[in-house]
């Protein structure tokens, strides 16, 4: 299978879908000649022209609102929000409008749209350009929240997201754009709402998203050498969350650690832990369930501080070891 980057995987999903379905168009800031702040749509303007690679003024609220409006009347917009932090300018349109239209109107409308947005720190972009806000989105009924960690997942999940009849928030990670992975040439889709066991293991279940998946896998490799077998689950879709896969795993391992870059307090790890706490897996727990997450601070600019703000491999390793050594 050819190796392509995460950014290329996203671009190829968009391009293929735009070739297949003329209702699909890309909508956002600097997505044309510039190719988007991270070059994800680079080159698409040449193929699809300015009407389908529709560049907008700086108006995030109207971008999301207009995407919803277009979706209500038969289009399938892919809106790009340049940094996830800016979805905060469009929360009204996302939460009060896109997410609720169908329900408020008694099931008669639908809003098939995707909002792509890069999250995460690690690029020195400081407090207003580095947030991981997926935990806000999972609290909103009516939308789906997707969050791929590999090129393969990115492509398959984006195809599903574009074809989904609901508003889908598709969260990318800046540090992943240049990472490579195998992606088949043939079309494939990954259904939304299905977690992926990225590594099997019997000693502890780690649920992680985004950039934390590969970090955890590295640590898992290392610990594997010592005979500590870490099962790594990437939920891929955070809403709806595939609780069953996690339950199954925890029943096997008896231990759960949830890792995310997003701030700890109020983060989605709480959702996972609460789901397990009231699930049949609870009885199988051999240790307290724990969270390892971003500190409860805005992301600092300085490189060392930025590094310290979110879980790194060392932190992950230490946390896993601590849990493994607990017995209760």
């Amino acid at each position, binding site marked *: 299978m050819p190796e392509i980057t995460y950014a290329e995987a996203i671009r190829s999903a968009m391009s293929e879908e735009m070739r297949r379905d003329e209702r699909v168009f890309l909508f956002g800031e600097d997505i044309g000649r510039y190719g988007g702040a991270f070059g994800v749509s680079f080159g698409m303007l040449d193929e699809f022209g300015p009407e389908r690679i529709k560049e907008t003024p700086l108006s995030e609220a109207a971008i999301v609102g207009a995407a*919803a*409006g277009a979706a209500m009347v038969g289009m399938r917009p892919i809106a790009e929000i340049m940094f996830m932090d800016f979805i905060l300018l469009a929360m009204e349109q996302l939460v009060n409008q896109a997410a609720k239209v169908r329900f408020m*109107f008694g099931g008669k409308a639908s809003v098939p749209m995707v909002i792509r947005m890069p999250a995460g720190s690690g690029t020195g972009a400081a407090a207003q350009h580095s947030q991981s806000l997926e935990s806000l989105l999972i609290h909103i009924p009516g939308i789906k929240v997707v969050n791929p960690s590999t090129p393969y997942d990115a492509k398959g999940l984006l195809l599903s997201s574009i074809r989904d009849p609901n508003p889908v928030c598709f969260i990318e990670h800046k540090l992943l754009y240049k990472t490579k992975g195998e992606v088949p040439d043939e079309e494939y889709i990954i259904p939304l709402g299905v977690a992926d066991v990225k590594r099997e293991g019997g000693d502890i279940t780690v649920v992680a998203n985004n950039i934390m998946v590969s970090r955890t896998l590295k640590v898992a490799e290392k610990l594997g050498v010592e005979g500590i077998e870490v099962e790594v689950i990437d939920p891929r879709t955070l809403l709806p969350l595939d609780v069953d896969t996690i339950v199954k795993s925890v029943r096997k391992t008896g231990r759960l650690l949830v890792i995310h870059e997003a701030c700890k307090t109020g983060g989605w790890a709480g959702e996972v832990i609460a789901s397990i706490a009231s699930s049949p897996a609870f009885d199988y727990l051999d240790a307290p369930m724990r969270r390892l997450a971003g500190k409860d601070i805005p992301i600092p600019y300085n490189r060392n501080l930025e590094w310290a703000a979110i879980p790194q491999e060392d932190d992950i390793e230490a946390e896993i070891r601590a849990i493994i050594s607990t017995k209760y």
Partner: protein
Amino acid sequence: MKTVEKLQKTSNEDFKSRMEELDLVDEQLVEMFATMSKIRHFERMADRLYAAGKVHGTMHLSAGQEAVAVGLGATLKSDDYFLNHHRGHGHFIAKNADINRMMAEFMGKDTGYCRGRGGSMHIADIEANNLGANGIVGGGLSLAVGVGLALQMQRMKQIVVVVFGDGAVNEGIFHESMNMAALWNLPILFVCENNQYSMSMHVERATAKLPIAQRAEGYGMKWHYIDGNDLLLVYETMRQAVNDVRSGNGPVFVETETYRYFGHSKSDRNLYRTKEEIDNWRRLDPITRVRKAIVDAGIITEERAEEIDQEALIAIEAAVEFAENSPEPDVNTVEEFVYA
């Protein structure tokens, strides 16, 4: 600092000749009068039902603003797209919505347009391209931009109309939507119903410069600023605006000066305006005005006018009966309709 641009007004003199200029025949005027009466009775009934404890929630009644709804509605094609906000009953009636299903929605019944999920603030008839009322002031504006964009991309002939109040124009989304619409020449008609107040806030205390419509200038958008209680003038202006929009010349903005008689919503103690002010506006009542005009012009008799008004009331009463006899939504379906 405030410059009030000239408000367009007309008088009832020469009503017949104005009708002719506008290619309006008698039946159309009678029909419009009937629709205005229906709206008025719908709103009064809503108020009464609320007082009688038959509905809960809140509601925003448009009595006093009927000429805008009807003058606009009469110029639209049935498949034009439509979006409005919380004070939306009148527009839907003027766009030929089924008052039974509207009333049923208002009363939260399963036969309502939204199967009782939406209520007064969220009536929609998606199949008829009525994309719904919005409870967020300004919430429909960017949706309209999206609809306009879709129509343009799909090379469709319809237009989209979005109606909003004088309060909505101070929300940021108003600005973003106006800019996008004008920039891309979208087929959107922006209709601002300036009923003088956003809740208790007089438009002069909220808006740096009046009339509101002159803001369209800043986007290079065509605009009109008219007496919204003058049915023929509303019709004339909207017809021209709709034609302009439909012919692909980009969006148009129309501001209509009007007034609401009821309080803003059920929580209103009406302390921010005087009885005198309300009475003054009542003297400019759009229904009385058109009724007098068509009677004076000999189009119908005073008796027939009274009959039409009574028929409107009867239709509304029938709608209430329909709604009252309709089932409540099944509580077991409460989790439906969240996802498609």
